[in-house]
Structures are given as C-alpha cells and as structure tokens.
C-alpha cells in the first residue's frame, strides 16, 4: 500500500470493556486489523501509547458518568477525524444507565458502604449528548458485521453502512422459530436494531434488546402485543423496555 497507516484510538468510559475485548478478539481479522491501523492508543491491547492525537479514527466505548469524562471526550473529538460510538453503553446508556432509574445519591449509597462525598458521579449520559458522533457500532458487545464495516470503511474512506433494520429480519433469514408468535415470549426483536444475527431467538430465548431500539421503534404497538399475551403486568412490560437496555430511552429515537 505504501500509504501511511491510519492512526486509530480506542477510548473507554464507564462500561465493562466488552467492546474493547470484542475488538481485541476480532475473530477473523485481528491480524489484518492490527497491520492496517496504527493503534496509537488502545489500553486493553498495550499499556504504552498516547491519547494525544491526531486520530484518523476513534472508537469510544462506555457511558459518561463523571465530569472529567466530559472534558476527555471533548478532547478526543477535537483530535479525531472520524469518531464512532461503539457499544450500547456509549450509544443508549446500556447497563450503566440502569442507575438513572434512581436518584444518584441513592445509587451511591447502595454501591458503596460509606457515602463518598468526594465522588462526583453524575447521571449517565450517552456520548452523543456531548460530542458529535459520526456513526454507531451497536451491540453489547457489537456484532462482527458492523465493527468490520466501520473499520473497512475507514480504510476505504467511505461512509459505513450500518445495519438499520430489526432483529426479526435476521431471525427470519435463519428460519428460526419465532418465540413471540409461536411461543408467546415477550421478544423485543421487532423493535431492536439488528446486528447480532438473532442470537437469542436462535437459542429459544426472547430478544431483550441489547442492541438498542431501532429507528422509529413503535414501542406502544409492541407493548400492546405484550399486554395481549396476557401473563405480564404493566410493570413487567415497562421494565422490558426501560430497564436493562433502555433506561435512558424513554422517548422514541428519531
């Protein structure tokens, strides 16, 4: 190729590091990826490296839950040509956003034995609350397909084509049993963004929405369907949408 390898950075905020692991274990193409990019900053892979830019491509995982992260995030944005949010924590709030369901001080009290008055923990935020994001690599952790699309597109200098349809499409293409229609399980697949390959339905489990809501998710229509199933309380149904992976998503995504 001869050309300079693009400089890439991987940044982590509040999360389990699963997305970083996903990249570090990038099954089919780890070797090629490491050869194609100059990973100038990727803590999980190497303790050396510098977060100082500039970066051609930055991937940011995790939710924002502390004030210093806001300052860091803005710096990363300034130093990056292209910035993708990676994983549900960064994109929808994910697991860390569960704490948004209770007042912050109450959450701190439950998490730590003594009150840590020095802890400047805030309500959780998605990263595009603070900086402009060029695209979303969805999932918890992301599927290979969108991660691959992001990386190869960055190398080709084109806009990536991320999946923007329901889990049901992947489910049908695999000829899976439909756990909602055939078994009456409260499957979130119809309103959840694809990318996982319909992993849960393929194992006879109802999708719980870990990739986040897809565009124009018709929440009230699916709630109505869950009500008709007849064995869920209003609270169960509400929790299905707004606890594990939707604590911040009380409004339809536009």
């Amino acid at each position, binding site marked *: 190729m001869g050309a300079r390898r693009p400089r890439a950075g991987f940044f982590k905020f509040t999360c389990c590091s699963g997305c970083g692991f996903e990249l570090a274990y990038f099954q089919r193409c780890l070797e*090629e990826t490491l050869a*194609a990019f100059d990973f100038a900053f990727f803590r999980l892979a190497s303790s050396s490296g510098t977060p100082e830019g500039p970066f051609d491509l930055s991937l940011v995982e995790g939710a924002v839950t502390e004030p210093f992260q806001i300052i860091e995030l803005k710096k990363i944005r300034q130093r990056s040509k292209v910035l993708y949010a990676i994983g549900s924590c960064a994109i929808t709030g994910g697991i860390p956003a569960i704490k948004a369901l209770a007042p912050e001080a109450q959450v701190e009290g439950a998490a730590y034995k003594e009150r840590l008055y020095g802890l400047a923990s805030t309500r959780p935020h998605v990263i595009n609350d603070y900086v402009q994001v060029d695209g979303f690599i969805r999932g918890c952790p992301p599927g290979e397909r969108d991660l*691959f699309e992001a990386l190869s597109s960055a190398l080709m200098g084109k806009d990536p*084509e991320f999946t923007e*349809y329901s889990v049901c499409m992947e489910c049908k293409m*695999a000829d899976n049993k439909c756990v909602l229609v055939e078994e009456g399980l409260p499957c979130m*697949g119809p309103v959840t963004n694809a990318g996982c390959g319909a992993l849960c339905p393929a194992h006879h489990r109802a999708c719980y929405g870990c990739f986040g809501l897809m565009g124009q998710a018709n929440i009230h229509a699916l709630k109505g*369907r869950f009500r008709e199933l007849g064995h869920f309380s209003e609270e169960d149904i509400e929790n299905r949408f707004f606890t594990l992976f939707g604590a911040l998503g009380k409004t339809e995504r536009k």
Partner: protein
Amino acid sequence: MTGVNASQRNYRVILPENALARWLEWLGGFYTLTGPVGGGVAARFTEISKFEQMDLDYQSTMLPPGKKYLFEPVEEVLSFDVSEGVFSSGPYPPGRKRALIGVHPCDVNAILYLDMVFLSGPYADPFYRARRENTFIIALNCKSVTGLCFCHLVGAGPYLKAVSGYDILLTEIGEEEGAERRGGKNRKFMVELVSEKARELCDVFPFSMGEQPEEKDFEKMSRMEAALLKSFRKNLDMEGVQSALLSRPDHHALKETADSRCLSCSNCVMVCPTCFCHDVMDKTDVSLSRSRRVRRWDACQDISFAQVHGGNFRAQRHARLRQFVYHKLDYEEQFGRKGTVGCGRCIRWCPTGIDLTEIARAMME
C-alpha cells in the same frame, strides 16, 4: 392391481403411500430431498433423509420453500482478490440437485412469480436460474384450508391449475383398504407427471406399482376440491380492490393500522413467497485486497429501504405499509397478475396480526 405404463392415461396414476415413499427414497440418490417437517401452520421445509420425517398433512410453513431454496436469504454473488488478480463470480451452478416435496399450490404459483422476476427480460439471474434448473418440484394439492388462506381469491389454490413450471402434482385421494402402515393407514395419492423430467424419471418405476385412475377417482377429486372451496373463511372483492386502493392512497385505515400496530419489523416481507427485494453490498477485507459481494433479502418496511441521495421517500411508517399492501393487491401492471398468492403468511407471522385484506376491506368501504 393393474400395472400401467407412464405413457398411458395422461401420465396419471394412483399410488399407495408406501410406493411413493420408496420412489422418493430412490430419488434421494440423485436429489437432496427437502420437505415439510413439523406439522400444522408452522412447519419448516428441511432437508430429509427418510420419507417419514415429512408431515404431508402440514398446512403451511414459515418460510416459503421457493424463497428459501431458490432465492436464498444470503448469497455471495461475486468475489475478487486484487493481490492475486483473482476474480470469480459464483458459486453457480450449485452442485447438488434438490427435490422440493409437498409444495402447496400457492407456493408453486409463488415460484412461477419469482420466475417472472428473476428469469424474464434480457437479464436473467444466473444464480436463481442455476438453482431453478437443478430443482425438481413435487407439488401437493391442499387437503385443508387455514383461517388465513385466501388463495381461492387469486386462483392460486387450493388445487393447482398451472400446467407447467413444476414436475409432479400429488393429491391425496383416500386410503388403501385393509392395508395398515406403520403409524397409520396407507394413503393413496393421485400422481400426475407434469414435466418431461418427471415422465423420464417415473417411466417404469413407480408407475408399475400403481393403479390406473378411473372416472370415479376424478369425480372424487372434483368433490374434494368443491368442498375445500366452501371451507375458506376469508373473502375480499378482488375486482374492486385495485381501483379502491389507487383512488385512496391516504386512507385513514392505512395510517391508523401503521401507527397503532405496525412495528416496521419486516416479518411480513420476509415470509412472503413473492417478495423479491434484495440488497447488494460489498464486504471488503481490512487488508483491502479481498472483497465479497453479497446479496441478501431486503424489505420495504425497513426505515432505510427508501433512503436515497437527498432523502427517504418512504420515511413514514404508513407509506411503507402502503407499499406492501399495494404491491400485493394492486400493482398488476408489473407482472400481469397480483403479487399475492393468498398464502396468509404475512398475517400469521406479523407479531401484531396485521391483515392486508382487512386494510383493503376498510379502504373499499
């Protein structure tokens, strides 16, 4: 039992189920046998090794056999490797020959529709064609009707009227007297050899094991068909539907159904045997030397389906739902027939049970 030769009596013979089973297992030496497994309305077309794995009493499958095996959900259409200068398109023709067994009339008609999409005009699809030519279709007339079927309204069932485009037509016409078979009675099938290929394959065996049908057998088939036609529960004025849809594209029934119930999940499109839309995308390795061009099923209910440069011309949910309903019940100009074969799958597999015939009915009022 009077033995008959295939060249006699219009290539029709009555065969007991066990003879049919033996013949199919013989056919399995040349074709991958594929038939309905698991009964009722949610059977699946699956590769089988034994006749007994199939349930020929099945009423419907989730994915239609033609769409699953002739227009595959995902396939590679082209690949290249710049570093090695290799360019290949394929893999077609696919190696194994396939026999689709027990395809209902609506699904045979849907295959004939897909043929118009993929094989007519100057640019026939070589992948589809290769699979189509390698597929032996054994159709099976229906013996029961589900509450969602409306094939009778579009002439796509419950008995198959098409005279070509498939190979064999089976109709269960009774049981062999006195003969018990493992797991039940030994049923009898009217077997019609429709294609040349079928006539060659069946010339001696299994025809020699069959009985020549008599007038009373054909009368019995007519009576069974008439009884079936009376058992349909769905109805719609198919003559009036087109003008009603054309003149009322903004009808509130579309908008209300879309807003209150449609999830834009595309299950309807995925299971529809005549939906042919697909997307094509390149998957280029991070080494930037190898690339694969992949085609997969697409759906007009997806929010990004109508996203083009400058905007999305079906950004609203009801505009997408309208596209589906109209393509099935209205756009006859496209292929000279309606897009629906009345199989009822889109209704059955819609998580909220949206019914295109109900929408159309409301629009006609």
